[in-house]
């Protein structure tokens, strides 16, 4: 086993464990902080894949924006600082069943795919991943339309969020 594999196993285990803590911890802020740990673990997995840009974006967007948004939402909606209610209702087993089913389905599907058991070729050193991404997003032969549509989608998200918040007033 190489050092990188060992690191991956440790990070994967910690990520899964913090994911479990997100759904089981009784305090909502703690759950949000465990979520941050989970997201950070995913960022480390990206760095192990040599996807540095994606890892940094993961931290900027998910920890810097989405986790903060979650914490704000929890703090705004709760009546007390320390909410100690149960995190799961009586239907938790149905959720667990769906999760297990999804995992089994994905596992079954991926087993048939040849790339699943193959080690991907290492990225050559000096490979300009961000530049390639930039080319793909801007060249007319690439993903120009999805790039612009992403902007429209985000605009729609913003308008939707503003509409919802505005109506509540």
């Amino acid at each position, binding site marked *: 086993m190489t050092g990188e594999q060992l690191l991956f196993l440790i990070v994967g285990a910690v990520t899964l464990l913090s994911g479990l803590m997100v759904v089981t911890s009784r305090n909502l802020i703690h759950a949000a902080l465990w979520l941050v740990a989970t997201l950070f673990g995913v960022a480390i997995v990206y760095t192990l894949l040599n996807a*540095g840009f994606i890892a940094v974006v993961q931290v*900027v967007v998910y920890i810097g924006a989405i986790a903060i948004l979650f914490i704000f939402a929890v703090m705004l909606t709760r009546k007390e600082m320390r909410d100690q209610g149960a995190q799961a209702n009586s239907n938790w087993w149905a959720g667990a069943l769906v999760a297990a089913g999804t995992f089994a389905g994905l596992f079954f599907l991926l087993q048939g795919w040849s790339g699943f058991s193959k080690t991907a070729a290492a990225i050559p050193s000096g490979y300009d*991943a961000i530049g390639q991404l930039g080319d793909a997003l801007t060249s007319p032969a690439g993903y120009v339309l999805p790039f612009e549509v992403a902007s429209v989608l985000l605009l729609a998200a913003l308008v939707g969020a503003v509409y919802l918040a505005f109506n509540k007033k």
Partner: protein
Amino acid sequence: MNFWNDPLKVAADWLMGIFTGWGMNAVAAQVLVAFLGVLMLITILMVLDIFLVWIERKVVARFQDRIGPNRVGPFGLIQPFADIIKLIIKEDTTPADADKVVYNIAPLLSMMSVLILWAVVPLAPVILGVDLNAGILFIIAAGSIGTLSIIMAGWSSNNKFSVIGAFRQVAVMVSFEIPMLATLLIPTIFSGSMGMNAIIQGQSIWYVLLSPLAALIFLIAAIAELGRAPFDLAEGESELVSGYNIEYSGMKFGMFYAGELLHAFTFGGFWSILFFGGYRFFGLELVSPFLAIAVILFKAMVGYWVIMWVKYTMMRIRIDQMLAFNWKFLTPVAFVLVMVTALMNALLRGAPGWLFVSGMILSNIIVAWAALEIVRSVSKKERERIEGPKRVVEAHH
């Protein structure tokens, strides 16, 4: 190759020789050498941080027409060490209702979010730290962790003031992240890379000359990110006493305080890297890496001094003013500037150097002037709406 030309490589090779000589495996030895290098850099930073306390106190004293610390040691140089001894032997109180674990992690994360910034700082052409290809975004990513530490500190203290302070501070930090991201796009456009070293290497002409407005917006956003005056409404001594860190004492408070100072110095450094050529100074950096380090530290110190100058000159603004300033003025201006810069960069490609520079400066001046004119006319309208149209003063009496 000798020590004078490439000290880091020479030292690393020497250590590698020792460790492998002990029969250590090559990869483990390499990791150990890297670990020692990081440990050394961070230790130096912490020592520097101690002197930043002295510098900050001396500078604020001069701004306020005082002398500042001058009793302990020559020029009061020993003062920060006395401060540290005081912080260490202070009782570390924890509020009874605090969330102990989160409360204790927050100061660690706060300091860490500043220290990791130095991972991407190129100190000299041969001492690059880590030349990440997403180096610029790493600043924002580290800032995200800082934001998180503040909200953790504020929430876990279980104190009204600290929660309000944390909310305000986080609102400031996230809001000003947008103009900061937008201005980070501008050095990226000029250099064609997000790596810190490529940005420095691209600055045969300092980017501040190509885009002075971007440098200014970056400085404003950085000051807000630091939570310094005029954006220090998280502290708000008169209302919130100290904001998110109100319940912290002893060394835990010291971590927040030292983190703030080092953060300001670090952002002075990033300002110089992105817009003032980093370690480059008329070829001095090629003479020796030690001179390059001296150049970048000097530039960072100048940036830090500007940040202090702003802090001790400006009044604190209210949160509504701060958010309006960011979202209604700074963000639109920053994005317009990005568009104009991208367009000018494409139009002036291949133009001679003087034309490129003057075209860029001119476009910056036009954007700044137009923005100020629009703000002036809007605020005039607003004033008239509130006060009624200006009456003509009659001159009979």
